């Protein structure tokens, strides 16, 4: 039940929040419950081809040769595509905001860098024919040593995962990592009553939307193409497709709509460019929809992370120094991970005011499935680590964990470690309400605190 706590920040807003606490129906719900909502795959077109991808069975391998001759002869096959058919085969999604280098192949040419990487696209009249023909594609691989965790990737002499980077981490303009430097962290540790260093690790997490990733492309007959897609990032997909296919944007019409669950798993550009290329080269509508197996094994998960946090804390509860090293496992390609790792750097102090902070965050390449967005990527796992660390620190000094957070909570006017002044903080007020709601009492002085400076 939503309660509007009007006593907080009453001077900061007009008291006209009439919608809070009211039930409003989602505008799309009548369609959902009657089965009338249109998802991208609820369309079919005469003569539609089905695309099946031949994928790498190896984590890391050199491609010696690709033989598609048997697949091309399979009944019902309209076309088989390799890297040679892709006008601009090496791309990276965030090049749109000048985050390079281009490091990922649309269809693998000389190497595969993760198990599941796309190598050959087969187009046929039916899904079954496409599947059967895909099984007839012969790819000769020379298996290479694979790097399967970040520790191994960062060891001197580790095999290079991605030659476009030259080393197994993303090189920012700030160097090998994103850096936050605030105050004097060594001085803070020297003054601290206690120091606690802990390492936190997470595994990749698959978003597992109910509807798998895909698109359906229709050629409009004038070298223009309509792409019905369930992407969560319509213009990222459109602009990257324009680069990959070397086609001006006005020839591409992307139609989004209701997405059957995304959770960040549908922000990459994995189906549209190749489906549009297939449609262009065959002149027919093309459907490329991930199987459930592809959704689980091939679509990008949340990155695995390793986070080392070292804190200096005083017996009175103040955290006086925080040192963090954060590692994000991008898998074989960048996609959105350089951005995710960067977000972590700014986030690591958490919603706490700490005078001395040092944070380094690395975006690391391994021969694993490329990771990408998922609900708050870059900060969600950081928050897990930070809040477990907060509980451990409270226990270390024998303090109630909620009272410990009141002592360190950021307040309006406090300078954050990444040099953004705190504005509109409401952590203290939220914790006051949480204390009451959870029946977790705190001392009266914490209930009198406020996020206002001097409060």
């Amino acid at each position, binding site marked *: 039940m939503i309660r509007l706590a009007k006593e907080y920040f009453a001077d900061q807003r007009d008291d006209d929040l009439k919608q809070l606490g009211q039930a409003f*129906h*989602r505008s*799309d*719900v*009548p*369609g*959902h*419950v*009657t*089965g*009338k*909502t*249109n*998802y991208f*795959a*609820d369309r*079919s077109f005469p003569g539609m081809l089905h695309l099946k991808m031949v994928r790498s069975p190896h984590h890391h391998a050199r491609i010696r040769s690709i033989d598609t001759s048997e697949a091309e002869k399979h009944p*019902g096959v309209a076309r088989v595509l390799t890297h040679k058919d892709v006008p601009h085969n090496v791309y990276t999604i965030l090049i749109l905001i000048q985050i390079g280098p281009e490091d990922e192949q649309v269809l693998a040419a000389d190497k595969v860098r993760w198990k599941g990487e796309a190598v050959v696209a087969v187009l046929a*009249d*039916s899904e*079954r024919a496409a599947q059967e023909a895909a099984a007839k594609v012969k790819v000769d691989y020379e298996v290479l040593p694979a790097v399967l965790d970040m520790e191994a990737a960062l060891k001197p002499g580790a095999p290079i995962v991605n030659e476009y980077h030259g080393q197994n981490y993303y090189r920012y303009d700030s160097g090998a990592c994103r850096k936050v430097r605030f105050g004097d962290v060594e001085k803070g540790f020297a003054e601290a009553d206690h120091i606690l260093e802990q390492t936190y690790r997470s595994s990749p997490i698959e*978003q*597992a*939307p*109910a*509807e*798998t990733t895909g698109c359906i492309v229709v050629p409009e007959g004038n070298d223009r193409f309509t792409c019905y897609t369930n992407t969560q990032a319509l213009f990222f997909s459109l602009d990257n497709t324009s680069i990959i296919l070397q086609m001006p944007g006005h020839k591409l019409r992307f139609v989004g709509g*209701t*997405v*059957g*669950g*995304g*959770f960040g798993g549908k922000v990459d550009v994995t189906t549209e460019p190749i489906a549009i290329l297939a449609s262009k080269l065959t002149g027919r509508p093309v459907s490329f929809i991930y*199987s*459930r197996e592809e959704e689980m094994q091939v679509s990008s998960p949340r990155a695995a992370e390793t986070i080392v946090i070292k804190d200096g804390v005083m017996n009175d509860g103040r955290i006086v120094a925080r040192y963090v090293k954060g590692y994000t496992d991008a898998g074989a390609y960048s996609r959105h991970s350089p951005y995710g790792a960067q977000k972590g750097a700014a986030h690591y102090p958490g919603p706490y005011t700490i005078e001395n902070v040092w944070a380094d965050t690395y975006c690391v390449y391994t021969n694993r499935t490329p990771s990408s967005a998922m609900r708050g990527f870059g900060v969600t796992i950081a928050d897990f680590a930070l809040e477990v660390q907060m509980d451990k620190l409270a226990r270390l000094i024998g303090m109630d964990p909620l009272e410990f957070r009141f002592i360190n909570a950021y307040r309006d006017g406090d300078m954050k470690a990444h040099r953004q002044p705190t504005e509109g903080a409401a952590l203290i007020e939220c914790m006051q309400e949480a204390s009451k709601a959870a029946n977790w009492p705190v001392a009266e002085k914490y209930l009198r605190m406020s996020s206002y400076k001097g409060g």
Partner: protein
Amino acid sequence: MAKKVPVQVTLNGEERAEFVESGATLLNALRGRFGDTSPKGGCHQGTCGACSVIIDGELKLSCLTLAEACDGAEIVTTAGLATNSAMHPLQRAFAEGFAAQCGFCTPGMIMAAKALLDQKPDPTREDVIEALSGNICRCTGYEPIIQAVLAAAAASPHKAA
């Protein structure tokens, strides 16, 4: 191309006949031939429940059912539940109870719930959980769906006194 076979069904009360590819699943036939896209393909391997339909009174996974095996059958899907413009009590309860978010699992959930209420108009919470256990939802966390089914049962005129 696979051989086409005629399939005649009663779909949501209407007599329908279509030629479908031999070996096609009922899910693909309903969506591609009969034009009813309310059953969804979430896995095509019988694990997610999004394709659930009612065949001759029984809840079935249409992705694991051969279309040609349904010749002569009576099939009900979520698209057939509303009468005129009035929603079925289950549809209303799902809408009012925020039991649908992305909506992709919703038609299958509603079919599973309907199959339960047809057999047991006054189910317990455990009955509802059991009946929905073959249907995966990734958005709601299930609780609003369970509550919606119980609310629909409570509102039903067929409820046992």
